[in-house]
Structure formats: C-alpha cells, structure tokens
C-alpha cells in the first residue's frame, strides 16, 4: 500500500504534536481527537504511535545505533575507550587526540607490571587481508627499532571492532621546544640536542622506517634530560592503510599539519627526504622559537596551505630573531643549513639525515660545512659499474618497462578473452561517423522553472525531482536528436552536464570547441508545458533564434522534434527525410512508460543501476516494444558489470536486453550500438566491430567512436583507431579515458609531437594536480631520445602517482641514477615488492648479489602463485621468465617468455604482442644470446607499440650488443615512424 503524500504530511503533523504531550494517555487522546471522523487515518496514526511507545521504552534504538555505526565506520571516530580493555591493557585516561587517532594512558590488566603504557588507537579500521598483513609487517619492523632516544613499541594489534592500536613506552616529558624555552639553552646546547634527535632518526632510516610526522610535539624531553621520539613509523602504517575520506576531520577541516613538507601538502608520497624537511622545520623552531611558515589564519584551507608551503620561501632564521648576538650566530652557516633542509624540492635538500647532521656537526666543530662548499649532498652519486650483474638487473627492468605503462587504458579493463581478427575487407564498411562537421554545437542542460520557486539546478537533493526527470528528458532527447543529424558535431551529454546552471556561454563554447550553444528552460503549469529555447552564436554572442512553445503536456515529443529541426535548419544542416521520420517517431506512445524511462535515465546518470533496472523493467512491461528502454536496460546491466560487480548474470542480462532491442528494431543504430557494447564488455572486439560496421547514427556518437577505436586498435588498424579516438575525444572532451586512448595511439605510432600537442589541449580536462598527462609527455620525450627531459617533465609534474613513481624509477635507472631510484622506490608500498622488479635491479646494480638472488627467488614464488590463479597473466609470465634468466635457468626463462608471446599473437592482438616479443628479445640479450635477441628485436622495431629509440638507446639491457652494427641499424629504424598494414 502506498501512502498519499498529503495524508502522510497530515499524519506527521498529528504525531509530532502528539509527541509533545506529557503522557501515553494524553498522546493517545490527542491522536484520537485529531483524527476524529477519519477512521483510516486514525488507524495509521495509532499504529505508528504504538510503535513510538515501544521505541520509547526500549533501551536500544537499533536504527540510531546503525546510523552511529555508519558514521563511525566512515569517519572513523572511536567512542570513548576509558575503562575498556585493549589487548592486555586497561585504558585509564585519554592523554591526547589527533587526526590519526587518540592516545590513552593504560596499565596491564593483570596488574603484573605497574608500568604504565601509552596506547595509540587509530581511527582507521583494517579492511582487507592485505592490510592486515601489511600492518603485521610494519609492526615487526617497528618492534626491531631499539634506540635509547626512540620510544619503544611494546605491542600492537587490532581491537575486536577492527581498529589498529599501538602500545608504546609511556614517556613523561615536555615537547622539545618548550624544554628549550624553559631552560633558555645556548645555541650550541640546542644543536647538541638536535643532533641526538637526528641520530635517532638516522637509526630508524637505516631500518627503512620513515617517521613522516616529525614535529616538536612528538619529541619529548624527560625530566632527566633524555630525548624521546614518539610515534615512529605509525604515520606510515596509518596513511597507507587509510581510507581517503579519513584524512579530513568530521568538521571538514584539513588535518594536514601546518608543518607538512610541500610534497606532503600536495599529497605525494613521502620519503626520508620528508623527514629531512621536518627536521629542518624543527631546527628552525629550535633556533628561533618560531615556525618557518606564516599562515593567514589558524585553520588554513588546502589552497592557502599549498601556497604557503609550496611557493613562499621562509625568512632566514637569522632575520626572525631579535637579539643581535643571536642574529650573528645564526647568519651564515646555520641559515644555509636550515635553508638546504627546507628546500621545496626534495632533490635539492640534504640527501639524508646523516648528511644534514654532518653539516650541523661540522658547524659545531668549526669546520667548513658542505652545503656552503657548493656541494649539495644530493649530487653524490656512485659511478656506474659496468659489471655483469648490472646488466642482468637492467634486463629485468626492461621487461617491466615493456609491460608497465604504455597502453594503459587497455589494462584498466584486463583482457579476458582474445578475439579473432576481422578480415580487412569488412573494415571498409565501417561508417566513419566523424566529428569533422563544420557546424558544432553544445546543448546545455535545460533549466526547470517551477512557479513559485527559484531557478535551481535540479539535482538529486532538490525537491522537484519529478520535474527534474522530465526536464532532463527533454534535454536528452533534443541533444540526441541533434546528434543524429549527420553534418552536425554535437558535444555529448557527459561533457555538457558539467555546465549545468553555468552562465557565460562564450567560455563554455571555447572550452568545448563549438561555435553554437543551445539552451532552454522548461515550465510545467498544470497540464500545459512551456518550453523556451534559444540558439546562440557563441563567437558573436548573439541570439540566432529563440522561441517559446506552449502545448499540452503530452505533446512533449513534438516540441522536441520541432526544436531539433529548427535548430538544424538554422544551422543550414537540414535533416534528410529519413532523419526527419526517425525524429518524429515518438519513442513510446505510453506516457507512463515514458515517465518510468525518464526516471530510469535519471538514476542511470546517477549511476544508481539497481533502481534504473527496476524502472526499466517496469517500462518494458508497460510498453513491450519500447526499444530505447531495452537499449538503456542493456547499457545499465553492462555498466554495472564493468563498474560495480563483474557478475556473469549482469553480463548475460545485458546481452539479453540488447538482443531484444535488435530483434525489435534491426535497423536502429541504438540497438546495434547496444549489441556492440555487449561485445566490448565481453572483450569480443571482432564482433563489436561487426556490429558497428555500416550502422546508422546512434544517439551517442562519442561512445560509438570510442568502441570503434578500441576494436580497431586491437586489430592493428592504428590510423582508423586514432581517427575514431580523436572524434570521440572531440565529442566528449571531458572524458579523460578518451583522451588517454588518443595519447596512447599517438605514442604507439611514435607521433610524439602530435601527442604533446594533444596533451596541451587535453590537460585542462584532467585534475590539475595529476601526473597522468606528464607520464605520457615523458614517454614522448624518451621516444625522441631525450632522457633528461623525460625525467624532468615527470619530476616536475604537479602530482605523483604510483604509475608516475614507477616510471621515474625506470628513467632514473636508464640514467644510472641509482640513489634517486632507491629513494623513489622507498615511497612505494611494500606489498608492491614484486609488481615491478626495482628492488632486485637496484640490489644487483649496487653489486649486492646476495640480496638480488634472494629477491628473484622470492619473485619466482610470487609469479608462480599469480599464474596458478590466472594462467594467462602476461606480466607474471614475463616477470617469471626474467627471474629465471637472472638466476641462470635458461630453458625455463625462454619457455615462459615464449608462452607469453604465444598468448597474444600479433595477428590477434596488435596492442600487447609487440611488448611481449620485446620481452623475449630482452631475455635473450640477458642470457647473452645476442643473435637471437636481434632476431626478435627486428620483428618489432618497426611495429606500432614496439620499442622506441630512447628505449634502445638508454636501456642497459642492450649494452652487450649496442655496438653491433645490426643493433645500430635497428636503433635508427626505431627513430623512424613505424611501418604497418
């Protein structure tokens, strides 16, 4: 039974007043009086009142408890723990609270030991098995840290409800800055104390433990004058395990400490260098009594934080102290030392705490400090040895690089099925629906104008939800109608929805690359529909056409098709008779079904797939031949398969709905597109291409072009793929996936200049502090043989992701810059140990054969496990092959590499095949089989997605054969555009 909204409001108000009454009886009486004469209302009210009385008396409000639990799980707030037991301890009181968690004082529950401990209870729960393992790993590392100046970690674990805790030695003391203030210590004794802190941090770094949150409040001085560092390594466990939403406090304020390093403020991975920076901040405070950075107010926003930390140079320590004698004492050496530690770029800081402390020590003993000798410590780099072990290591590196980043968008959705190659004759039938049309237009979301309410961008929280479905439906149909006009380039829905409610049409036109803008507003008055529509010439900023329609509600389709036809003719792109008849055909005659469809569309766009599916099933029940409803139903199932849960049922249901659509309307482009979409989801690119061949114009041209490009690329039709990919990106410029696909195709074709030009345009649609675009730029520069540029473009990227870090490590090794490679490696999560072979490579390059062998032995076990789960995992096969090769197991090495090559034959997978053949070549080179290596290399050097010039020039795997004239010949070919077809 569904309630009438008005009666429900009435009921709520009666009950609300009833709850204000003092007693149960008074409440009953109130309800009875208020509902007099309306028996059903009374029944309902009494039933709810009875429920409320039960709730009132019950001790537990389960719904409330669940809500609180949700809040806690999401926000990770931990309820008061006083008196509760954590592990073997009982909490006695709270002693501190921070962004990561709360610190309690606790004592052994069994009373055996009187010693009190500090327990840090983190706000985050442990979610996956992997995180649990990682936690235990870190715990073991921390437990080994035994240093008189580091507070001992006594125990750690997970509470019953899944929160991590650390039990630590309880230190009674005052923060180091306060201690110095209270004791008005001399500069020299301050520096002595600072050196003690440094030596503790150094020991931790030697155990590969980075503090990440060094600050005065974590460094205590006891009454005996001993220094103790707290919370070592906990930030690392915490930050890596954290859910992204947790780093913000419940009140929305940033928890990032104002003493964060620039890289931390930008959210990049932090390293030992981060601790160097933090120690610089500390030394600044120790010397001057104030912090190096000034913020406009106490709770700076992220933007303010970034501006200050990343752009503003702090004043020199000597310039902020008042006392003249102290100024002189700080000027020179100490200004320079602090300045070096506080460099914005990690690479320009002291390369280690040890070198930092070394300068402080030299200053104290009156020696010349290094930083002033024009020798920043970070330039100390080992000269590269040319030993056999080095080449072995770099061979493995090359394997990883062959697989790592290029053609990444394919890897976002891993290959399950390989498809047959289409015969090229069929390809010519593929209609080339392009974005080349001269007339271009963006149809902005229509506004809803409801009498008595303001113009609102109708969103999910708005109250006029019904209106919003309806208005968006009109927008969608007009947009789709114009899309199907063959000579028009119409920006797709995904990219125009970003401009909902936006006002300056000119800027929008520029951003979307269109000459015209259409916009409109809709008003429902009773059963009359008012639609106002306007066509704007964006360059001249003039209205080309404008019209107000007023018709009965059920005439909505005719208004839509009239607007489409008028706009098309205004733009001199009149519709063909076929287009016209398709347009005037209403999608359904059943208005109820249509309303369900619009609601479904709304939920689909909100990615609420389960609701959309319910509504669409309702649609097709009401109107069985409603083709668009089947198309959307299929798309919904398939998106749910791709993005929510890859269940076979969703895939099958997506297929089923698409098949019905094709049966109902075999000629309709949208039905064919639905079918193609299914084949794409099922990784059957051949059939997808078949469906797309020779079909008409569907409602979503960007998707059509994207599907084409994906299929063509795999089949080796790179030019076509590039053309269709570009068309898709032009039609849907806000979709970063489309941009990535274009970049990859350019790079695979060694069109580096074109790739960079495209990147210049695409970058504004990417998050501004992302390094994805920089990664691709880096590929371009390396492809041209410019290793230094490839590195700097990525080093200077505004953000740093794991992908970017991996790429930088590879480039650092190409440049034989092992220190940088190792520093970068330290920022990667421990569990990624075998996903890239860096650790083994660096060990071999440094001549640590034992460590290298140990690494590769571990790698073999790791890859074998992976292959037991997925026998066709290309990365694992290649990695395994190399690990064997490094360990001298020649036959096994070649066997694994060949198996990978056979899994992706060139004729069936032009995207992955060249990389696998390259891997085989590298394995031969690594085994000392130069001739076989050259043979394999010759197969791929001219192929798209094959190795580029920079790879051959810098990758040390080729050192043995680089001077061979045949190799030189191949290298020069790699500098040319590839041949294919």
């Amino acid at each position: 039974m569904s309630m009438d909204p008005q009666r429900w409001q009435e009921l709520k108000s009666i009950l609300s007043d009833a709850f204000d009454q003092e007693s149960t009886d008074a409440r009953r009486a109130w309800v009875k009086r208020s509902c007099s004469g309306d028996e059903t209302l009374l029944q309902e009210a009494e039933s709810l009142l009875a429920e409320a009385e039960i709730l009132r008396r019950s001790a537990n409000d389960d719904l409330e408890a669940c809500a609180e639990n949700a809040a806690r799980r999401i926000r990770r707030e931990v309820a008061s723990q006083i008196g509760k037991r954590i592990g073997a301890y009982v909490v006695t009181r709270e002693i501190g609270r921070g962004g990561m968690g709360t610190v309690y004082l606790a004592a052994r529950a069994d009373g055996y030991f009187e010693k009190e401990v500090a327990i840090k209870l983190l706000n985050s729960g442990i979610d996956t098995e992997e995180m649990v393992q990682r936690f235990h790993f870190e715990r073991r590392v921390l437990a080994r840290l035994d240093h008189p100046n580091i507070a001992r970690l006594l125990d750690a674990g997970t509470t019953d409800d899944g929160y991590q805790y650390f039990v630590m030695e309880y230190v009674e003391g005052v923060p180091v800055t306060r201690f110095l203030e209270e004791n008005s210590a001399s500069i020299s004794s301050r520096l002595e104390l600072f050196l003690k802190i440094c030596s503790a941090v150094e020991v931790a770094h030697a155990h590969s433990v980075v503090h990440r949150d060094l600050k005065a409040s974590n460094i205590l001085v006891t009454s005996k004058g001993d220094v103790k560092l707290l919370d070592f390594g906990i930030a690392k466990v915490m930050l890596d395990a954290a859910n992204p939403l947790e780093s913000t406090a419940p009140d929305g304020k940033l928890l990032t400490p104002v003493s964060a390093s620039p890289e931390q403020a930008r959210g990049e991975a932090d390293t030992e260098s981060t601790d160097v920076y933090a120690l610089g901040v500390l030394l600044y405070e120790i010397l001057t009594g104030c912090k190096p950075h000034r913020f406009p107010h106490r709770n700076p926003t992220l933007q303010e934080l970034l501006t200050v930390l990343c752009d503003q140079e702090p004043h020199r320590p000597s310039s902020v102290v008042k006392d003249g004698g102290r100024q002189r004492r700080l000027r020179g050496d100490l200004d320079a030392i602090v300045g070096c530690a506080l460099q914005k770029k990690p690479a320009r800081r002291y390369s280690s705490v040890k070198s930092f402390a070394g300068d402080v020590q030299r200053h104290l003993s009156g020696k010349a400090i290094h930083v002033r000798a024009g020798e920043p410590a970070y330039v100390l780099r080992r000269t590269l040895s040319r030993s056999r072990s080095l080449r072995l290591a770099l061979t493995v590196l090359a394997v990883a690089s062959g697989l790592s980043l290029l053609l990444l968008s394919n890897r976002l959705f891993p290959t399950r099925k390989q498809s047959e190659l289409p015969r090229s004759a069929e390809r010519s039938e593929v209609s080339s629906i392009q974005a080349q049309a001269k007339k271009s237009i963006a149809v902005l979301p229509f506004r809803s104008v409801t009498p008595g309410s303001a113009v609102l961008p109708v969103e999910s929280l708005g109250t006029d939800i019904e209106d919003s479905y309806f208005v968006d439906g009109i927008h969608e149909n007009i947009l789709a109608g114009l899309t199907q006009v063959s000579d028009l380039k119409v920006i797709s829905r995904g990219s125009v929805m970003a401009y909902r409610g936006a006002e300056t049409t000119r800027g929008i036109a520029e951003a979307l690359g269109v000459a015209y803008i259409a916009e409109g507003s809709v008003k429902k008055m009773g059963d009359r529909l008012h639609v106002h529509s306007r066509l704007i010439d964006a360059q001249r900023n003039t209205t080309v056409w404008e019209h107000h329609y007023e018709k009965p509600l059920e005439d909505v389709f005719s208004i839509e098709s009239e607007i489409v036809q008028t706009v098309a003719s205004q733009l001199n792109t009149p519709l063909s008779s076929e287009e016209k008849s398709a347009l005037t055909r209403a999608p359904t005659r059943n208005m109820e079904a249509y309303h369900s469809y619009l609601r479904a569309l709304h939920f689909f766009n909100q990615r609420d797939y389960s609701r959309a599916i319910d509504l669409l099933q309702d649609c097709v029940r009401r109107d069985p031949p409603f083709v668009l409803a089947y198309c959307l139903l299929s798309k919904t199932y398939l998106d749910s398969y791709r993005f929510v849960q890859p269940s076979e049922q969703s895939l099958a249901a997506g297929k089923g709905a698409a098949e019905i659509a094709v049966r109902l309307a075999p000629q309709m482009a949208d039905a064919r597109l639905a079918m193609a979409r299914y084949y794409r989801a099922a990784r059957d690119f051949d059939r997808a291409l078949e469906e797309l061949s020779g079909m008409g114009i569907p409602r979503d041209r960007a998707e059509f072009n994207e599907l084409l490009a994906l299929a063509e690329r795999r089949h080796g039709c790179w030019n076509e793929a590039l053309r269709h990919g570009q068309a898709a990106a032009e039609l849907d410029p806000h979709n970063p996936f489309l941009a990535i696909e274009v970049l990859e195709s350019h790079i695979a074709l060694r069109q580096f200049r074109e790739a960079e030009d495209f990147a210049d345009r695409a970058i504004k649609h990417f998050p501004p502090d992302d390094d994805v675009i920089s990664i691709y730029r880096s590929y371009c520069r390396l492809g041209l043989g410019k290793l230094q540029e490839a590195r700097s473009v990525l080093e200077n990227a505004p953000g740093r992701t794991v992908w970017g870090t991996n790429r930088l490590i590879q480039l650092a090794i190409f440049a034989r810059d092992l220190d940088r490679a190792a520093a970068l490696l330290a920022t990667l999560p421990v569990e990624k140990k075998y996903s890239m072979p860096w650790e083994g490579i660096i060990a071999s390059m440094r001549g640590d054969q034992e460590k290298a062998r140990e690494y590769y032995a571990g790698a073999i076990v790791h890859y074998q496990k992976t292959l037991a789960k997925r026998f066709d995992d290309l990365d694992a096969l290649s990695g395994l092959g190399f690990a064997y090769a490094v360990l001298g197991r020649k036959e096994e090495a070649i066997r694994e590499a060949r198996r990978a090559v056979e899994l992706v034959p060139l004729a069936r997978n032009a995207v992955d095949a060249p990389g696998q053949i390259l891997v085989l070549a590298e394995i031969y080179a690594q085994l000392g089989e130069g001739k076989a290596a050259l043979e394999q290399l010759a197969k791929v050097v001219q192929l798209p997605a094959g190795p580029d010039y920079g790879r051959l020039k810098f990758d040390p795997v080729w050192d043995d054969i680089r001077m061979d004239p045949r190799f030189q010949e191949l290298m020069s070919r790699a500098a040319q555009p590839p041949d294919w077809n």
Partner: protein
Amino acid sequence: MPAKANGSSLGEMIPAVYDELLRLAEIYLRGERSDHTLQRTALVHEAFLRLENGQTVSWESRAHFLGIFARTMRQTLTNYAIARNRKKRGGQDRLELAAEFYESREIDVVRVDEALRELEQFDPRQSQIVELRFFGGLTVPEISTAMRISVATVQREWAHAKVWLHRELSRSDR
C-alpha cells in the same frame, strides 16, 4: 537561486568521484586492491578535499556529493547484504563488519532499502534524510547543512522516519 557552478573542474569531478567510489566499493567487495587502487584512492581523496576546501565549490555541489556518497553506501551495503545472504562470507573487511553490526542489531538492510523506496514515493525529503543518516553516516547537523533545512526539522523527520521504519521492518518480519 542560480548555481554558481564553476564549470569544468568540479562538474566533471563529481561523476568521476562517484565512479571511483563505486570502484573502491567493488574492490572492497572482492577484498583485494588492484594496481590502480592507489591512484583511484588519490583521486577520490583529491576530489573530496577540493569539495571540502575549494573556495569556488557551491553548496549544491557539496550537497550533491554527499547525496551521491550516501547513495553509494546504500547500494553497496544492500548489494553486499544480498550477496552475503546467498553465501556466508567471513573476514574482517569493512563491509563484513558493517553487515555483522546490522546482524547484531537485527536490522535487515535489504528491507530498509525496500522500505526507503516506498517512503520515497510519498516523502522524498524524509527518505533522503534517512539515506544520509542511516547509510551515509552523516550527523544531524551535517544533514541540516547539506539539505539547507533546520536541525530541528532534520531531527523531527529522522525521529518520524525511525518510527515508521521500525513498524515496516517488524511488519515484514511476520
């Protein structure tokens, strides 16, 4: 009131955030992290920070984000409960912990979801409040800010909704 939507960055961010949330949820469901999880985590993180701190972010965008977030949690928790009913799962992942909590309170999430669908038919605002509170874990004052209604109203609506929900849940028990 026209929204001062500042075009591209935020507008495109919201659907992106939503996708990322869904994918994260999926990863939680499978109990594993993919190679790209860290990247995605960073994206969601960034998007959220921007929403929280960006000066140009409108109230609508923030409300929209929270709405979507709560909706995602609702879907994820409901889907998980359905999957869980079919096949008992173990482990310590977050969804499982949440599911165990509901179980300990004898709350059937799937029925809550169904009841909410019904409630939405005749009182969409109340249903939205329940979604934000019960699934999204937003506090009453947060909901008040997000929906631009008074704290007292949110409290009253939530109290009413609980009474109604309790009755619906106990009804379907029979």
